[in-house]
């Protein structure tokens, strides 16, 4: 047995090692190096000495949590509605529309929302007034960032939920219906528990999308609401400080590790437990 899986294991080790492990190991190494390539803790000392980074990190996780929760709730709602569509062509079209945020690049997504949100006499302004909120509630505020992140994450939460919910249909939901359960009861006691795995995976992926989001948060939220990815990009591209950028990258990687382990474990289970 072990001998037979030797060759595939070597192939896997080579591919995953080059593509995934090598860059991440190097990232960790560079974060402990200075310009003259000697070992140092200076990058991390700079991180702990600058309170901005800690504030931004906390803000990043708070905003990501709120956006992920909202995107998951909306995604499950959308998935349930999609699964109920009887016409398969209509359903296919709607599923294609769900993928739309994936084909629009980030810069334009951010600017399009900015244009929509700053138009106080337009759709958004009227809507806010109807809800009793000031028309500037969604312009350069954390709420605007959350809205943009929800938009970005909606396909990520909807599509796995849809797969889970439509897979849960069939004999089990029929059995529940035969036993006299209403549609809402079936959804609550059969479909959603069966789809819990894919829904959770979608939520974790959307959380990491939020934590790593750049361009969109600073465009919609304004300069006082930037998230951590902006500082990584700033250190690497604007300041050419790869050591600092790597240390910031490690900071994100290490603090997000619980979510990543949860998500990676969940993905492995959902896609291999068949």
């Amino acid at each position: 047995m072990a001998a037979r899986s030797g060759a595939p294991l070597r192939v896997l080790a080579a591919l995953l090692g080059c593509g995934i492990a090598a860059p991440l190991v190097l990232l960790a190494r560079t974060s402990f190096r200075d310009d003259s390539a000697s070992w140092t803790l200076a990058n991390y000392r700079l991180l702990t000495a600058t309170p901005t980074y800690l504030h931004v990190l906390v803000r990043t996780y708070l905003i990501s949590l709120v956006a992920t929760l909202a995107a998951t709730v909306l995604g499950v709602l959308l998935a349930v509605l999609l699964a109920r569509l009887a016409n398969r062509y209509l359903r296919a079209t709607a599923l294609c529309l769900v993928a739309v945020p994936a084909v629009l690049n980030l810069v334009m997504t951010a600017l399009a929302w900015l244009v929509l949100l700053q138009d106080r006499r337009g759709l958004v302004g009227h809507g806010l007034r109807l809800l009793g909120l000031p028309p500037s509630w969604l312009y350069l505020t954390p709420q605007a960032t959350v809205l943009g992140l929800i938009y970005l994450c909606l396909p990520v939460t909807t599509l796995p939920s849809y797969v889970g919910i439509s897979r849960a249909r069939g004999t089990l939901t029929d059995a529940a219906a035969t036993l006299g359960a209403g549609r809402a009861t079936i959804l609550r006691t059969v479909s959603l528990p069966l789809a819990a795995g894919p829904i959770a995976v979608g939520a974790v992926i959307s959380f990491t999308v939020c934590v790593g989001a750049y361009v969109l948060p600073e465009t919609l939220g304004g300069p006082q609401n930037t998230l951590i990815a902006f500082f990584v990009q700033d250190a690497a591209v604007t300041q050419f400080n790869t050591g600092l950028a790597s240390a910031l990258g490690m900071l994100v990687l290490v603090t997000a590790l619980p979510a990543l382990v949860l998500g990676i474990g969940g993905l492995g289970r959902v896609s291999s437990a068949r």
Partner: protein
Amino acid sequence: MKAVRFGVLLALLAFLVLPVAVVLLCSFNPGYALTFPPHAFTLAGYRSFFGNPTWRQALAASAAQGGGAAILSVLLGSTIAAAIGLVRRAPLRRLLLAVAMSPMIVPVIVFATADSDLVSKLRFEGALAVIAAQAVLGTPYVLLMVLAASQRFDPTLVDAGRVHGDSGLGVHWRIRWPLILPYLGVGGLLSMAVAVTDPLMPLFVGAPDGETLARKTAEDLQNGISSTDVVASLMMIGLLVLLAGAAAAGTVGWRRMGSRRLAREVRAALAPTADRAVAGDLTEAADGSRTM
């Protein structure tokens, strides 16, 4: 109740499509600002996009690098899926799958920083590095699709092929591959969407002048967005829609061609011995089973 459900669905779908509609309308705006609603109609943005060699080169680079990354990720994804399928121990299989999926989970900015480090150590900056880095980002999508395909794959079909005298390789090409192909196509398209719209990898591991549409648009964000950038974003969408259409047409055409060949083979095999009516039925059945 049904009307409410449909209304909520429409509202959510409108939320998803709204920014693309804004971008489309703004591409006809004159001047250098995004304003909504647009106050005039002009094709100036389109003219300056296609009139500028830098943008045309960026378009070509986006198409080439996006296509390259998609092809590479399809190769990587199917190889990894096949190799993982051969690993016997379940916990090890799960761990390897988890590692292979991790580019989907680890924030792109972390990978971009790490890759830029690796690439500058190897002195490998340029289009090939971008293709490789983006292929790694797209591989989990292909892997997910292959796993979904193999879940629906009926293993008795392979046995049936072997029983009827096809070789192992023949079974692979004639049965397994056509059934998995559409899933690979969708995985490749998703990975291409990631590659075309991502400005970070060209910025972090590309050559200093290695502009792609996404990177140039991201750089223009600092200097002020013009209607040319808006047109560039539409070109990225156009690129993806074009390729999705080509992939769909290719898959359908390929399957139809395959079914015709199968029908011909059945007819040739049956003609001398069997009654014509039976041969007709069987070729029809073969046609039907392939085009379904």
